[in-house]
C-alpha cells in the first residue's frame, strides 16, 4: 500500500490534504450528527422518553413503519421485474425505460407530490370519482404510500441492473435447456445469485422510505396522529419550538441512518471479500471480475 516517494506527494502536502478532508467531513457531516444526539439528550432522559412515548409521536412512528413495510415488497418485485426485463431481453426503448427508472433521482420530491395532488386531489383527474366511491388518497395514508413509492422504487432496480448485467444469463439459459420453468429459474438460479444485491437495494430503499420528507409533506396534509410520518412530526415539533422533542424523534431517524450505513458497509465488505476469493480461485476469470466491478460502479453512484 505504501507508495514510493516519487509517486506520492511531499509529507507536508499529504498532511495538509488529510487535515482539509477530515476537517471538512468533521464540520459538515460529523458535527450535525453529534448535534442531533446532543440536542435530543439536552433536556434529560425523562423528556426524551415522553417525546417518543407521546401518542402523536407513536402514531407517526407506526405510520412510517407501515408505509415502509408496504413499499418494500412492491419495490423489490419491481426491481427484480425491471432488472429481468432490461438485462435478459432485447427490445426497443430499453434506454428510455432506464431513463424513466432514473427519473426519481433528479426530480424534486415537491414536484412529485404536486403531480399526485393533481391526479388524486379533490380537484384532480380521478379525485372526484374516488371521493364518490369513498376513497381518499391525498391528505390520507394512500397518498403517503404513493409518494414514498415514487422516491424509493429505483433503488432496488438500480442495484440489480448492473449486477445481473455482469452475471450474464448463461446459468438461466442452462436451466431452461434442462427443462426448468420460469418460476423455478427465478427461485433456484436468479434469486440466489442476486440475494446480496437485493438486500443492499432493500436497505437503501428502506432508509429513503422512512426518511422521505418533501414529497410526503405535500400529499399528507399533516393530520396529527393520522397522516403524520416521523419526518413530518419532527418538522411540526420543531416549528412549535419544542426543540428537544423534535430532536428526540429525529434521533430515532438518525439511529436508523447509522444502522443503514453499518449494514451497507457490512454487505460491501462481504461482497469485496467474496470477490477477492473468487479472484484467487479462478485467475483466468479475473477479466470478468473487473468488468463486474466496473459495471456496478455507476449504480453505486446513485446510492
Amino acid at each position: 500500500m505504501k507508495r514510493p516517494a516519487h509517486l506520492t506527494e511531499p509529507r507536508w502536502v499529504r498532511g495538509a490534504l488529510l487535515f482539509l478532508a477530515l476537517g471538512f467531513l468533521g464540520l459538515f457531516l460529523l458535527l450535525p450528527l453529534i448535534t442531533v444526539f446532543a440536542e435530543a439528550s439536552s433536556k434529560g432522559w425523562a423528556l426524551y422518553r415522553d417525546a417518543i412515548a407521546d401518542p402523536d409521536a407513536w402514531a407517526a412512528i407506526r405510520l412510517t413503519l407501515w408505509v415502509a413495510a408496504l413499499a418494500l415488497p412492491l419495490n423489490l418485485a419491481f426491481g427484480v421485474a425491471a432488472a429481468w426485463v432490461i438485462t435478459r431481453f432485447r427490445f426497443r426503448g430499453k434506454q428510455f425505460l432506464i431513463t424513466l427508472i432514473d427519473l426519481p433521482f433528479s426530480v424534486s420530491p415537491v414536484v412529485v407530490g404536486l403531480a399526485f395532488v393533481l391526479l388524486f386531489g379533490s380537484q384532480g383527474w380521478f379525485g372526484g370519482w374516488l371521493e364518490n366511491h369513498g376513497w381518499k388518497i391525498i391528505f390520507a395514508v394512500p397518498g403517503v404510500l404513493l409518494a414514498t413509492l415514487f422516491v424509493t422504487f429505483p433503488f432496488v432496480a438500480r442495484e440489480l441492473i448492473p449486477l445481473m448485467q455482469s452475471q450474464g444469463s448463461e446459468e438461466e439459459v442452462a436451466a431452461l435447456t434442462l427443462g426448468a420453468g420460469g418460476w423455478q429459474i427465478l427461485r433456484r438460479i436468479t434469486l440466489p445469485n442476486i440475494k446480496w444485491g437485493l438486500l443492499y437495494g432493500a436497505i437503501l430503499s428502506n432508509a429513503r422510505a422512512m426518511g422521505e420528507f418533501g414529497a410526503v409533506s405535500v400529499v399528507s396534509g399533516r393530520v396529527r396522529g393520522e397522516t403524520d410520518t416521523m419526518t413530518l412530526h419532527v418538522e411540526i415539533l420543531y416549528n412549535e419550538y419544542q426543540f428537544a422533542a423534535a430532536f428526540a424523534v429525529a434521533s430515532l431517524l438518525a439511529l436508523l441512518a447509522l444502522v443503514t450505513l453499518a449494514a451497507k458497509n457490512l454487505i460491501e465488505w462481504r461482497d469485496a471479500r467474496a470477490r477477492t476469493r473468487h479472484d484467487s480461485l479462478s485467475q483466468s476469470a479475473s477479466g470478468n471480475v473487473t468488468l463486474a466491478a466496473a459495471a456496478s460502479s455507476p449504480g453505486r453512484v446513485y446510492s
Partner: protein
Amino acid sequence: MSSRSDPAPGHAAGASPRRTRAGVLPGFGASMGYTLLYLSLLVLIPLVALLCKSAGLGWAEFWNIVTAPRVVASYRITFGASLLAAAINLVFGAIVAWVLVRYPFPGRRLVDALVDLPFALPTAVAGIALTTLYARNGWVGEFLQTWLGIKVAYTPIGIVIALIFIGLPFVVRTVQPVLEDIEGELEEAAASLGARRWQTLRRVLLPMLLPALLTGFALAFARGVGEYGSVIFIAGNMPMVSEITPLLIVTKLEEFDYAGASAIAVVLLLLSFILLLCINLLQHWQARRGGRPA
C-alpha cells in the same frame, strides 16, 4: 446499455418470431407488464397530469407565472446556491476521495462509511441539525458570528451549507472508484519521463478524473436544485432573498393555486431532464475515457 450479455440471437433458433427478437428466457411479458404498469402509475401518468395542468394555462399566462419577479428571484437563489455548493463539493469531494484512496490513516474505513451519511440521514433531520448548529447560539454559528461577523442560518449562506451537506457524497462516490482503478504504471511512466509530481497530477491524473469530477458535480447540482427538506429549516424563507423554488411550489399549492404551482414545477422538471441528459452524456464519456468496455 450494451447488448453484450443479452442472449445471442442464435439461441432462439426455432422459437417464435417474437421470442427471437426479445430473448429465450421466459417471463418477458409478465415482468415487462409489471414494470410498465408500475412506471405508468407512478411516473408517467402523474407527470402527464402535471404537463396538462400547466398547458391548460395557455402560453402567455404560463410565461407570466414563471417569470414573475418573486419566481425569478427564487430561480436565482436556487441555482446560485446549488452551483456554489456543487463547486465547493467538487473541490473538497475530490480531496476527500483522494485522501480516502491514497493515504492510509487510522479510522479510514469509518470515515469512508461516514461519507454516505447524507444519503441515509433524512433531510428534515439534517435540516434541523444544521440550523441548530449554524444558528446564532449554535456551536458553529456563534463562532462565525463573533469572530467573522457572518450570519449563516436564515440567510442564503445557510442554503449553501445545507446543499453542501446533501451533495458531498455524490462527488466523492463518483470520483473514488475511478481513482481506485487508475494503475500506478501511468504515474511511474510520467515520473520516469521527468515529470514533477505536480505535472503528473495536472497532465496525467486530472484529465483521467475529469469526467468523473464533472459527473459528480452535475449530480450534486441536480440534487441541490430539487432539495427541499434540509433547506427550508435553515433558509429563513424570505421571499426574494432566501426562498427556494421548491418552496414556492409548496406555497402556491397551499394557496390552492394548482395551475401556478404546476407551471413552476414544469420549469424545474425541464431542468431536471436537461441535467439528466448531461449526466448520461458525461457517464458515456467516462466509460470511453476509462477504456472500459462500455
